[in-house]
């Protein structure tokens, strides 16, 4: 357990080093947020919807703030896979799945917290109808946070699976790139899932991609009532369990293959 | 006036120090890479440029090849200032970095060469002639259609050399060209450089850590340390200064009684074979030979200077590098 924790801590420290890039990234992300909000406001001005504009802007800002949880490729890890240096890791006396899981988790968590908190403060200070609204209710906030945690665990498992695939194909830009792009569309980052056609939403919200951001945001802004929370959380837990199991199987198979092939 | 004239060349770099705890901004530090280096090189010379890591070798090469502008001092190469009118200047030089490729990775090397022809605007007839000649001299005939990435390190280096000589530069810089090469490739490379130098009178300046390169190629060697020139002359002269110890191996035809040597000589016996080290300054070689001959019938004998790398290490130590 200690080993995984120190992997986690080391990644945190590495993330902290790149502050210059981070500040640039935050400002850029804020800008993207403002552009999106301006677009949706213009669209709403022509044809208001059932869902108030405040809910949409809140959705946009929360998505932008936690963008790094969604996509954060780890170039070091990809390099390791491509160069074959990964065999060193496979020789370590740790469970390889959890070793990478903690690494991915640290990267995502740190990247998004350091960027997310200033973003949220900024979005909160924007005028009404432009920025981040308060949560619909106290239970909504708490349940939203809980859902964020499960969504996060689920997302790390998903990323670890794509790492496993990358190791198999040695081409990070193929399969993984495609998965990442699907993620952009079906996580609500490209367009809030709440603006998708209502019939589509029934399916999309059940996919793992929607678990990270969409479910917590809906709980936060009251689109899902707190009474619905058990159902939402159940979906998340099932996905987390399934994806972690699948990931462990994949990595075990990888390890076996590597031993058979002799690296 | 010499072909290369360098006078009081200075260059310093600003490096950012690691941020100390509790301080918001990193402090900056200035490192003087060159503190006034002067030398001159005649046309057609083959000069070795050595020194420990960080001595300023690469900085000198970069300034003389026009990549860097110095902070002070002058340099003239063939009557041109390298860092002014870069585009005109670089037509006349070639540079090979041992660890950096200038050819295209995924395509056959012949394609790279033909693109270089366009970049340097080499006339077709001239290009064909030169390529044929280099192909022959470097043994590239069989690999012209192979992509660079599939070549061995030795083949790659030969291809790089070909690429940087296509436009017939008057001056060739080599930055650690033999790094990582096997013995056969090294020797082939050295032979080629000698050929290019004598055939075309190309002036060659070579930085290296491999003393064999220097010994095999360079009539002249310059030693750089801490941004200053410490030695400039023939390699044997440089070695003589530090060549204090020699090793002799002697094999006798029959068993011999033990010989007593004067102080400062260390000897060890294995059966009929004697191995000893002595310093010619204290015990003249002639005197030693006499001693050895008196001891018994010599069947074989070898005399060798100390390993060249050790010498250089001793020299760096002496010069406090």
């Amino acid at each position: 357990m200690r080993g995984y924790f120190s992997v986690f801590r080391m990644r945190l420290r590495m993330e902290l080093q790149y502050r210059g890039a981070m500040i640039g990234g935050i400002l850029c992300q804020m800008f993207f947020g403002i552009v999106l909000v301006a677009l949706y406001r213009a669209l709403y001005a022509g044809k208001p919807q059932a869902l108030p504009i405040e809910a949409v802007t809140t959705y946009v800002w929360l998505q932008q703030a936690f963008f790094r949880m969604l996509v954060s490729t780890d170039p070091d890890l990809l390099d390791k896979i491509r160069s074959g240096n990964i065999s060193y890791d496979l020789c370590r006396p740790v469970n390889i799945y959890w070793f990478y899981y903690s690494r991915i988790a640290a990267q995502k968590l740190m990247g998004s917290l350091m960027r997310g908190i200033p973003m949220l403060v900024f979005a909160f200070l924007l005028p009404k109808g432009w920025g981040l609204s308060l949560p619909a209710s106290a239970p909504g906030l708490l349940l939203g946070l809980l859902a964020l945690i499960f969504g996060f665990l689920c997302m790390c498992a998903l990323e670890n699976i794509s790492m496993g695939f990358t190791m198999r194909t040695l081409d990070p830009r193929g399969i993984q790139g495609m998965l990442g792009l699907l993620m952009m569309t079906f996580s609500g980052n490209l367009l809030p899932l709440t603006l998708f056609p209502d019939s589509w939403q029934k399916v999309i919200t059940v996919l793992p991609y929607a678990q990270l951001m969409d479910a917590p945001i809906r709980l936060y802004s009251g689109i899902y009532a707190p009474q619905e929370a058990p159902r939402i959380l159940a979906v998340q837990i099932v996905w987390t369990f399934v994806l972690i199991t699948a990931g462990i199987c994949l990595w075990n198979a990888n390890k076996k293959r590597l031993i058979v092939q002799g690296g | 006036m010499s072909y290369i004239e360098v006078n009081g060349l200075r260059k310093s770099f600003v490096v950012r120090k690691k941020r100390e705890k509790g301080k918001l901004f990193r402090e900056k530090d200035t490192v003087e890479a060159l503190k006034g280096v002067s030398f001159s090189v005649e046309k057609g010379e083959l000069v070795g440029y050595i020194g420990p890591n960080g001595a300023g070798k690469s900085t000198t090469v970069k300034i003389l090849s026009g990549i860097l502008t110095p902070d002070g001092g002058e340099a003239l190469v063939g009557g041109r200032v390298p860092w002014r009118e870069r585009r005109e200047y670089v037509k006349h030089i070639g540079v090979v970095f041992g660890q950096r490729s200038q050819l295209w990775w995924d395509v056959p090397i012949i394609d790279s060469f033909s693109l270089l022809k366009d970049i340097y605007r080499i006339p077709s007839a001239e290009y064909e002639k030169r390529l044929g000649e280099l192909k022959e001299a470097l043994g590239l005939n069989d690999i012209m259609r192979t992509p660079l990435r599939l070549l061995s390190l030795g083949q790659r280096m030969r291809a790089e050399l070909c690429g940087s000589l296509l436009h017939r530069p008057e001056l060739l810089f080599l930055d650690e060209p033999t790094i990582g090469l096997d013995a056969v490739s090294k020797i082939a490379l050295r032979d080629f450089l000698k050929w290019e130098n004598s055939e075309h009178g190309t002036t060659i300046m070579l930085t290296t850590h491999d003393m064999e390169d220097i010994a095999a190629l360079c009539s002249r060697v310059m030693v750089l340390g801490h941004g200053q020139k410490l030695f400039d002359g023939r390699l044997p002269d440089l070695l003589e200064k530090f060549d204090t110890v020699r090793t002799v191996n002697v094999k006798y035809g029959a068993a011999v009684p033990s010989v007593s040597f004067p102080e400062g000589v260390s000897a060890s016996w294995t059966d009929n074979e004697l191995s000893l080290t002595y310093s010619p300054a204290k015990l003249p070689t002639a005197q030693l030979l006499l001693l050895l001959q008196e001891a018994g019938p010599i069947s074989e004998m070898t005399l060798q200077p100390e390993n060249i790398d050790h010498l250089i290490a001793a020299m760096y130590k002496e010069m406090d590098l």
Partner: protein
Amino acid sequence: MDTFKLYIRSIGMLLKGHLQYPASFVMQTVAQLVMEGGEMLAVILLVDRFERVNEWTGGDLFFFFGMMSVSFYITEFFGRGVTGDFPSMVRTGKLDTLLLRPRTIFVQVLCSGTDPRRITCIAVGVAALAVGSRMSGVVWTFAKVLALVESVCMSCMLILGLFLIEAVFCIHSVKSVELVNALTYGGRSACQYPIDIYPRPLRILFSVAAPFALTMHVPAAWILGKPLYGWPAWTTFVTPLSGAVVFALMVLIFNRGMKFYRSTGS
């Protein structure tokens, strides 16, 4: 002319190199299709839900989207050296080897990168343009075709110019390179919709600092028969030239930056 030939030959060779790995290439090209398809899907879904924005109909919006996709990805296709590879050229020292050749650095940088995978993105953009112009009932005349071609060319120059800002930042080893993305990728996201739906500060930003509105929206609006701000027809052919201005300016600054690079060392 000689430089142009060199560029064509260099890009041809790089393409040959890309095709050495056909499986990976096809895979990545399809991935690009998924990505740009996703962007297009977002516009379709918005049009489905909101029908129009201000006076712009769905067809108009597809047209604007197509203009941006085509321009942006043509730039990435042919200008990859500037839009993508430059930072790594500085890092790995490849820039040094370029300095050893008797050609301008800008030309060599441009010659050292291409991104053929973008072909599918360009295809999506062309499809959007076709669908958009059909839905909006555009009657194509010679002048309109000319306006479209000029607009795309000038937008490409503008985008190249904006990416050069990033290159200049790299030369000066400024860390916050990501900030420039607000202009480049941010400009792409924002200006795939017509400029007049945005509040004033954004309109100023994308008309003055990164004038996508001038290179792209003024001609596109005219082609669609709804001149932006009611400006006269001749503006359609004049305002896009701002793209060339930005480009020329940035090339100048870039060359300045290279002087700095050579005096500070790597």
